[in-house]
């Protein structure tokens, strides 16, 4: 596998909004490359820019300026090859776990048998067998996020976007879910773009970290994380990188 192959490319992306009759720049001239099958983390302070970049890649909003290229071709709007795990889990409460996970294949018009099979595979992968008939409101926060991950995978995306998926979880669950995501990513290699504001989480998961500035967002630095997996969070090199990134991060107010 050619790991240096560029999968997704952002070229001079800018985004601004009009808030109270003033132009508010959310992102300015952001360019980056995402390699095939890599785990890329977008790290940045506060709530500025990261989610907006992800939403633009997902096709939920259009950039004011710049282009997004997938496999060398510009994409406009949402693309079937890109899946997303939302910050607020956004499971459909009226659907069972199974119905949520099989949503993507169902939308594509896949027959019931094969799509159930696929959904079951990913339900098992995230460790939720036995909960197929449960409704999201019967599940804990961590379990809901697992369903959300299974749903994204079941649609067989080439690129998986994860928007601060563990932001709402307690610390214990968060660590467990970070391990889970790493395990799943190693089982089912996809290109992952993961947004977080947590340096430790970024270092634990990432092949590369793209550090963004505070508002408006632009790329401040890119770090290659070459530590072996699973990572030891008290390894001296891990701590050194953590300090380095921390010193380079803007303060979020």
């Amino acid at each position, binding site marked *: 596998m050619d790991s240096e192959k560029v999968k997704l490319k952002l070229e001079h992306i800018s985004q601004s909004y009009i808030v109270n009759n003033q132009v508010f720049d959310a992102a300015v001239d952001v360019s980056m490359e995402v390699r095939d099958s890599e785990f890329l983390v977008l790290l940045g302070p506060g709530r500025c820019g990261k989610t907006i970049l992800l939403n633009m890649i997902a096709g939920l909003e259009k950039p004011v300026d710049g282009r997004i290229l997938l496999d060398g071709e510009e994409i406009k709007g949402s693309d079937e090859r*890109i899946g997303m795990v939302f910050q607020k889990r956004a499971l459909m409460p009226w659907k069972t776990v199974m119905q949520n996970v099989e949503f993507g294949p169902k939308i594509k018009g896949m027959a019931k048998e094969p799509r159930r099979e696929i959904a079951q595979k990913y339900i098992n992968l995230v460790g939720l067998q036995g909960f197929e008939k449960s409704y999201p409101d019967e599940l804990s926060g961590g379990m809901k996020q697992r369903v959300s991950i299974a749903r994204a995978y079941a649609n067989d995306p080439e690129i998986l976007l994860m928007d601060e998926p563990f932001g709402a979880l307690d610390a214990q669950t968060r660590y467990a879910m970070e391990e889970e995501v790493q395990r799943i990513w190693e089982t089912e290699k996809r290109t992952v773009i993961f947004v977080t504001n947590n340096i430790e989480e970024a270092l634990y998961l990432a092949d590369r970290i793209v550090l963004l500035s505070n508002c408006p967002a632009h790329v401040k630095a890119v770090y290659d994380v070459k530590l072996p997996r699973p990572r030891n969070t008290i390894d001296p090199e891990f701590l050194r990188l953590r300090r380095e990134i921390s010193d380079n991060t803007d303060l979020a107010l």
Partner: protein
Amino acid sequence: MKKEKEELFLSEYERRELLQSRIYRVLPVAAILLLLLLWVAVSRGEASKFPSPTAVWERYLKLLDRPIKNLGLFGHIWASLQRVFIALGAAWVIGISFGILIGWNKKANALLGPIFTAFRAVPPLAWVPLVTMWFGIGEFPKVLIVFVGALMPVVVNTQAGIANVQKEYMDIGTIFHANGRQMLLEIAIPSAFDAIFAGIRNSTSAGWMVVLAAEMLGGKSGVGFLIVRGMDSGDYPLCLLSMICIGVVGYLLAIVIQFLERIICPWTAKKSN
């Protein structure tokens, strides 16, 4: 005896929980008893203008014996219910469809929304004169008036539910590349079920109220007719008896609707538990 033994092993907290749950079971019964006492108190004495519980009870027994217009009490209740059911069935089908149309399609809403809002302000009973002129005083005009009364809440709630689907749910549709039809059927309509059911609940109680009023304006059957009959003949225990029946049936209808909601939308039931 067995129950008391079990309680010995309960923790302080569990005992309080048990007491709490008992209180909630006792409270409604206590309220009904209190109301009965109050009723007895105000209807005491020769000069009281309030029909006493015994008078109402006797009126009930007499009605079982001697039907009015060939129908007993339950016959009249059933006559009213039949009108409501027919009207509700039509109001739900048409109201939900219309609500989805103006909730989903902005052009349809721009076209029909204002007219609908204006019609909504007209109380269903204001239609009585025109409807009577057009269709006489048979079954159809009564059902029609109930239909008008039941339609409004269904349309309003459905429209609001469909038009205000949370953005995150719509985003899921976008991410998974759903087309317009799938957006509507897979996301918008199910997410609006709560609102639609609120409309169904309101339309049921509205329909039940309107049918009684419609029956008071003419007819030979129904609980509303019984009230008019009681008024005309000075038979006030009959009026009060009918009112009690209206209350009880209304209550039962609400329970049936709640039960329906649990079956059709199982996720809402699980949330409230």
